[in-house]
């Protein structure tokens, strides 16, 4: 028996010091300002929506993992908050419960829980309700209406399985001038009106609960990137490639295509690039792969927005990127140290 024991271990040899619950908890913290802003902007309905979706996700996670309590890893909470932020503030609560259940049950638990899900669970939930309830998910309410802290939007408490009531009359009573009921992206697509960058940055536009203030989302993302809870390359690749694509289109036809800044700040691109594309379970792990993945999402987002039937393309672009992740990982394996350059592993 020698004194010096040789220990054989497989890679990886270094640990960043962050455990999964630590990272997830910090992501939740960084999402709280966005939630707060959303509630300040849309009032009680947004609060009820966020709480309902998060509670549904947590309950589903608990229900489907009876043998192990997986609530402690905070991932279900992230899914719930993110899903709530991508829905319109006046979304009926019973549909929100459907979305939350689908997100966790079909998006995550069915594949074996955290880390095994091929698609971002929050986006799976949103894609399902987008396909199931296309009208409700494109019904928008004005931001900063006067009574937002004293009354709910009438659609919030729609009876289960029933159609939400028409809110055109209710919106008129709110005394909001010239409310078009359309997001900046829809107004650009159908009326060729682009919103100003100032409005988009500060969030005084009509949109989903959490995708309004681009500036706030950027700051929260910066916190995560600085503390290394997030791969900064993914948002940079997504936003950069989206801006470049938009710029190329604008060079080709400035009268028809909007400025790159509008493309970056409008819709869900900011929150999608920072919070959803960076989901660790569904994005590539190799350094080169991460760039490819981000560029695919950025370019696809712009292409879907410009040429697709829907006004917003971030959701499908990210789901497509998720689907390509295993392939990207396989083709971007780094060369193993000590093996030949031309030799394929």
């Amino acid at each position, binding site marked *: 028996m020698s004194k010096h024991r040789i220990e054989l271990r497989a890679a990886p040899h270094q640990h960043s010091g962050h455990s999964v619950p630590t990272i997830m908890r910090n992501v939740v913290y960084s999402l709280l300002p966005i939630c707060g802003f959303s509630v300040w902007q849309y009032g009680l309905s947004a609060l009820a929506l966020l709480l309902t979706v998060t509670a549904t996700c947590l309950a589903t996670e608990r229900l489907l993992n009876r043998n192990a309590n997986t609530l402690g890893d905070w991932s279900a909470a992230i899914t719930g908050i993110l899903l709530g932020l991508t829905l319109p503030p006046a979304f009926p609560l019973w549909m929100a419960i459907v979305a939350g259940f689908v997100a966790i049950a079909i998006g995550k638990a069915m594949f074996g829980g955290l880390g095994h899900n091929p698609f971002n669970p929050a986006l799976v939930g949103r894609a399902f309700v987008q396909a*199931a309830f296309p009208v409700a998910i494109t019904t928008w309410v004005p931001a900063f209406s006067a009574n937002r802290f004293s009354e709910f939007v009438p659609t919030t408490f729609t009876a289960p399985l029933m159609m939400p009531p028409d809110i055109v009359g209710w919106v008129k009573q709110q005394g909001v001038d010239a409310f078009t009921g359309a997001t900046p992206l829809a107004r650009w697509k159908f009326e060729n009106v682009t919103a100003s960058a100032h409005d988009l940055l500060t969030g005084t536009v009509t949109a989903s609960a959490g995708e309004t203030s681009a500036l706030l989302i950027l700051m929260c993302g910066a916190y995560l990137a600085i503390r290394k809870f997030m791969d900064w390359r993914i948002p940079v690749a997504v936003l950069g490639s989206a801006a470049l694509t938009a710029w190329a289109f604008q060079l080709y036809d400035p009268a028809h295509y909007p400025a790159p800044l509008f493309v970056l700040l409008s819709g869900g691109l900011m929150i999608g690039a920072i919070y959803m594309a960076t989901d660790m379970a569904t994005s590539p792990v190799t350094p080169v792969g991460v760039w490819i993945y981000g560029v695919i999402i950025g370019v696809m987002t712009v292409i879907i927005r410009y040429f697709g039937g829907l006004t917003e393309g971030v959701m499908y672009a990210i789901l497509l990127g998720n689907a390509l992740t295993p392939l990207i990982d396989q083709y971007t394996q780094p060369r193993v140290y000590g093996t030949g350059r031309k030799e394929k592993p």
Partner: protein
Amino acid sequence: MNPKKEIDEGITFDTFMEGVWRQNPVFVMVLGMCPTLAVTVSAVNAVSMGIATLFVLVSSCLLVSLIRNLVPKEVRIATYIVIIATFVTLVDYIIQAVSLSLYEALGAFIQLIVVNCIILGRAEAHASKNPPLKAVVNALGMGIGFTIGLLALGATREILGAGKLFGFSLFGEHFQPWVVMVLPPGGFFVLGAWLLLFSFMRSRSATE
């Protein structure tokens, strides 16, 4: 001519129940997915498709069983297909004569009964080796099992996708239809949910 081993175990209750439950074509064997996913947007369509398949299945199995000792082994598949195609053509014309709207709703899937795996599978695996009565009883069970499977999918999709069952409104006029349920993805979702339920029940009964 072509001596085949007769597996003569007589007709038991299991000959019939095999297709209804233990070897259900939709939920256990997962056969005939093309009509299962495509025509189950409503309960009426699903039941019509099930009955059409049931008729073709029983008639083909009877005929295959009757001529099982006359057909040379080398050409048996072609023979089965000709028999099945004959009955499918019959069903095709009958449905067209009875209800044109149903015929248009089911579309090409009536003709596609020809290539339904359940029918060819039963003809090859059961009817060609068993006497006519047993083959018919077994085919009847399979056909009923298939119809139950289609009905389960069709009813779920019609209730969620239109708020109706067999055309009767269940929730009043303010019902919010789940558009996805009448689209092709809805078929996959509902089928997946039913398969999940069935394998859950089977694994439970296996452990008990």
